[in-house]
């Protein structure tokens, strides 16, 4: 957490409601998101108990397992789930266009967006993906053909969701915490009901009072995947021991419906926030990844193995870091409130331009020709902790590379090095400008060897992954 977020936490308590931590919405929000609330049987790694799923508030489908211990019923559940989720994804994956960039590539016109309540829901999606993607569709433990496909798509969506800025699979509590700061502590803030109580408390109530009511599991059942132990003991167990499908169905509905309402309320709240400028560009990357994955599956590519090879893992890690850096920076460039967070930490400063020497020309070290290197002096009351030589960028002119020349009390001198094209403008005296070390282009990717060149320190070249019968028939008990 940053000082600004701690400031906003205290302010939220003072004001009795959550404080906005963003002025724009940094995630793309689909016109037709699929809300998915899974529940699992306590004590099991990935035994589904029930789920509520659908693309509209009035379009809730309730799936349930009468006996979660039964392996056959689990796969029936997965087949039913696949009937809903796979066509939803394929609808988007089927519509592609060719980009009009220099090197043309395929991308989908739009992409699916699955919303789960919390990080636990994301982890559960990963497990469902892992437990279904290898299943065989013929032979001794055959499952419906859609089941391994569901596994492959969920695995893909979960892997993408680990990249900052990807929006095809999101946890609602993360999304809300990115845009609002509540008066709840970290451990309490993963409770969707409590979070919404602070963001949008009922009339005449403070966030604190509303959250107290919201955290009662009888009023707001847990948003999954774990159920309330009291519900398990007093309601679920009797209904599983002495089967009564109709009553079980209603009991599960009672556990899921309140969260369903909260999810759509959260969607409404997020819709009311205007889109950030760079959200569309990030969504475009999701659309491209979707097209690539669709081609891979269509051409008979294998599902990802249980483990990444060393090179793939290193590449993925570098990709994750780059995405994180670039997302943080883009957010700050799009949103002055996020930039304020970095200003408070000393990663950016704002000030008023005093002088601009637009005609300054120097011979850079090691060069022979005279080139334009304008100097700008800025008066600021922010503490500036950058050292001379630091490369800085400004959200107002993101293409203009600058370097810090000196800091003298509250006067900062910058030299403009690049991005002075014909239609580019220089800062003008009196203008309020912000400069930061953040760079939306992200860090440089390390060069990694080809998989066949994996060094011995990392186990040497890995054997090619071939799915085994053992993978396909893994017992599920």
């Amino acid at each position, binding site marked *: 957490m940053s000082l600004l977020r701690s400031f906003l936490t205290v302010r939220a308590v003072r004001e009795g409601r959550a404080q906005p931590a963003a002025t724009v919405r940094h995630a793309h929000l689909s016109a037709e998101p699929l809300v998915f609330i899974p529940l699992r049987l306590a004590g099991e790694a990935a035994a589904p108990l029930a789920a509520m799923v659908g693309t509209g508030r009035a379009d809730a489908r309730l799936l349930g397992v009468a006996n979660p211990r039964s392996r056959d019923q689990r796969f029936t559940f997965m087949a039913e789930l696949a009937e809903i989720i796979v066509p939803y994804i394929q609808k988007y994956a089927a519509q592609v266009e060719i980009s009009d960039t220099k090197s043309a590539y395929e991308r989908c016109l739009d992409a699916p967006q699955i919303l789960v309540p919390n990080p636990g829901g994301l982890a559960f999606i990963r497990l469902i993906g892992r437990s279904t993607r290898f299943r065989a569709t013929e032979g001794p433990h055959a499952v419906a053909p859609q089941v391994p496909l569901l596994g492959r798509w969920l695995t893909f969506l979960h892997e993408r969701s680990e990249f900052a800025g990807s929006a095809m699979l999101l946890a609602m509590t993360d999304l809300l915490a990115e845009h609002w700061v509540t008066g709840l502590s970290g451990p309490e803030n993963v409770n969707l009901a409590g979070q919404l109580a602070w963001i949008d408390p009922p009339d005449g109530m403070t966030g604190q009072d509303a959250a107290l009511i919201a955290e009662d599991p009888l009023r707001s059942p847990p948003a999954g995947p774990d159920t309330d132990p009291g519900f398990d003991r007093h309601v679920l*167990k009797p209904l599983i021991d002495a089967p009564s499908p109709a009553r079980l169905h209603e009991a599960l509905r009672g556990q899921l419906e309140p969260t369903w309402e909260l999810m759509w309320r959260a969607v409404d709240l997020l819709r009311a926030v205007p889109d950030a400028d760079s959200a569309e560009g990030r969504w475009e990357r999701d659309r491209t990844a979707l097209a690539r994955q669709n081609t891979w599956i269509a051409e008979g590519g294998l599902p990802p193995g*249980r483990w990444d090879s060393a090179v793939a893992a290193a590449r993925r890690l570098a990709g994750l870091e780059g995405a994180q850096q670039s997302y943080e920076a883009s957010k700050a460039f799009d949103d002055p409130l996020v930039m304020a967070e970095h200003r408070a930490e000393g990663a950016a400063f704002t000030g008023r331009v005093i002088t601009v020497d637009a005609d300054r020309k120097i011979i850079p070290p090691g060069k022979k020709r005279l080139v334009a290197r304008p100097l700008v002096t800025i008066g600021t009351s922010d503490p500036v902790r950058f050292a001379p030589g630091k490369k800085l960028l400004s959200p107002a002119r993101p293409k203009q590379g600058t370097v810090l020349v000196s800091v003298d009390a509250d006067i900062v001198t910058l030299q403009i090095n690049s991005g002075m094209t014909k239609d580019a403008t220089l800062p003008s005296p009196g203008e309020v400008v912000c400069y930061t070390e953040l760079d939306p282009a992200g860090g440089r990717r390390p060069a990694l060897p080809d998989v066949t060149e994996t060094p011995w320190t990392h186990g040497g070249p890995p054997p090619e992954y071939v799915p085994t019968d053992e993978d396909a028939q893994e017992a599920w008990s």
Partner: protein
Amino acid sequence: MSRLDAIRGRSLPVDHDARRIAALAANPACDRRAVLDAAGIDKAKTVEHLGFPTRFGQSPFAVSRTQEFRATVKAHGGAHILRLLREVLGLSVEEAGYHDVGDVGADAGHGVRYRHTMAVLKSAAENPADAATLVDHPLLKLGVAGYDVYLEPDVIAFQVDRRFHVVAIKSFAIIDGQADSGKVSAAAREAAVYVHAMRDLFAQLGLDPERVSHDVVLICPKDFMNFPTACLVDVRLQLEALKRQLQRLAKIDTLLDRLPPGLSLDLQLDGETPTRPVPELSAALSSIPARYAPECLSACEMAYFCRDEARACGSLEALGRTVRDDLGGVASLPVAMDLIAGSGVPSAEHAAIAERLGFVRRIFDEVVA
């Protein structure tokens, strides 16, 4: 009657398990938890009587899953265990003796079972014929806050090559070689309590405590199956933390000396029903200083009572440790609210944070305006 018995009143003391000790060590600055646990007070019943939820129940499905898995692992005289131990410890042992210390009789007191555990472990440690031995249901004892507590264990001690290993059986899955890190570290903290208690016991028996290994064997279901797999977990770090925190726990006597004389947390049970007037019990509890932090919500039955109290008296820590650390030096929420609003004159000790917060307020107002 000791002071602790007097505080507990007529209720029977509750048993401790390693999870409680581990949780106690997680918040060693909390006097309230130290006193309640040392006195063996039923915290769940107490807090329910006060009208707060415990939210600590375990689902019956999780309980039966754990029992089933444990039974599978222990079936046939621990055949699975021996196979797994051979794998993870690289042994060539073909068979091992099996002693169940728990079968001295269900109604045997703690003292009896503890002496029996000591005897079995001593003979296993000293008798060469018992070179490979599994000891199930050992009962251990640990000094916590100057008071001995018995540990109802769910582990097995295994001896091979004159070294004992603590074997912990847990029902969370290890999927593709990975398990939930929160659950693994909870299991490691718990196992460290057993290692510590066993080393204590060895020292008492005049044996070398180092014969109890710091490598704990963790047995869990593999992937989505009911089939057990095992791995070694090094708990040296957890052991050090536990030792340090057990030492730091104020000696219970000095702690008790600071409490009001005649303090009683007796629930005045009528059968199973507490009859103690709630305001009286609440006031008695409040006279024992607590140190609430949001992490308590997942570690202590009293958490909701303490949270309510902490909020009522304006504790900043109730908003989380990061907020408290970011606003370094400020302990009270009303002071923090004044500082962020810039109202009033900050005291000298808060001058530095007041200045930083003033800057944050200025840039926040600039953006939001």
